[in-house]
């Protein structure tokens, strides 16, 4: 096919593109994946029976504050990396704020209980499964984001895969809070972060293969 024919064929279908098309497409992928994750939680894990009471407790909002702020930062970074000219990422250091805040809360909580209880606080009742569940719950969201990326144009594929994984992990963890009964900050800091980090790592490893265009 010569170039002129190609151009004629391409210019035959020119649909208007709304201004925030990139953000919208990512949001749709994220939400679609989130719905599947939510369904998986309802079906396989069940929501926390004491959720109504838990919502009134600060530890629930501590967990959400942590995962949601990570999720927002990661989603913004993903939206930038979805464009070919992605620009700078100095502001990503902002993600240190939720992590350091959680460290501070964790130290504060530890100072209020006798050291004999620290191990129990750290391991909770579900440390052995928490990270893997967070990781697995991130998979549908990552899949949703992959769908979004099919019309986007990342040029730094490893970074884009990594931030997509981080986004999926953070939002997967956010939804997992609806099931997880754990309350201590050091538990969240360790096991949630581990699951979210694994999701980011998997995204960075798969990015160059899955995001090519």
């Amino acid at each position, binding site marked *: 096919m010569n170039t002129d024919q190609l151009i004629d064929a*391409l210019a035959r279908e020119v649909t208007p593109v709304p201004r925030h098309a990139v953000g919208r497409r990512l949001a749709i992928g994220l939400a679609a994946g989130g719905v599947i994750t939510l369904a998986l939680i309802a079906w396989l894990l069940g929501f926390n029976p004491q959720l109504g009471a838990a919502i009134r407790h600060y530890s629930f909002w501590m967990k959400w504050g942590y995962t949601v702020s990570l999720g927002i930062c990661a989603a913004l970074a993903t939206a930038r990396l*979805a464009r070919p*000219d992605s620009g700078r990422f100095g502001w990503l250091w902002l993600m240190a704020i939720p992590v350091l805040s959680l460290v501070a809360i964790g130290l504060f909580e530890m100072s209020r209980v006798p050291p004999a209880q620290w191990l129990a606080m750290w391991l909770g009742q579900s440390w052995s499964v928490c990270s893997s569940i967070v990781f697995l719950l991130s998979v549908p969201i990552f899949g949703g984001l992959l769908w979004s990326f099919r019309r986007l144009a990342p040029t730094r594929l490893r970074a884009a895969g990594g931030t997509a994984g981080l986004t999926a992990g953070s939002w997967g963890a956010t939804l997992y809070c609806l099931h997880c009964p754990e309350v201590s900050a050091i538990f969240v800091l360790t096991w949630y972060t581990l699951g979210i980090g694994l999701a980011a790592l998997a995204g960075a490893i798969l990015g160059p293969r899955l995001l090519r265009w």
Partner: protein
Amino acid sequence: MQANEAQLKAWMIGGLDGDAASQAQLLRALVPVLEAFYRRRMRDRRDDIDDLVQETLIAVHTRRATFDRERAFGGWLFAIARYKMVDHFRRCGRTCPIEGLDDILVAEGFEEASSARIDIDRLLDALPAKQSQAIRATRLDGLSTHEAAARERMGESDVKVSVHRGLKALAARIRGEL
């Protein structure tokens, strides 16, 4: 023919708003731009260059939603073109010899030169109009003081003084930025 940034961007935005004629004009104008871009980097591969140009045009069209209207069109376009070229090299794997390394280095230098050009424009814009015109005429366009005075309709001594003051202000500004 090389269309300029403003014109290309106007066509691009026209296409984003759903104007098929703008989109066709944009794609047509991009053919020589992309050919020059790839030829400067990959010597003697006419077929490859044609393929790459077509692939890039398809990408520019199907992924146009990723263009941010607030940002430069050139940056967006060349980021796509560079990605397509790297992807092309990666696909060929090791069977592609690195030909014309000198050319590639020169070409990268060209890119630096054009971003330096953007920096200069940004700096000059911060000066009073008269000083920036005088500097542009004598130092960038290479006119003599006499020619510059005629073109900008200024006195010759006015040109000299403007250049002097402007350069001094620029030097102070750059020192301040560092």
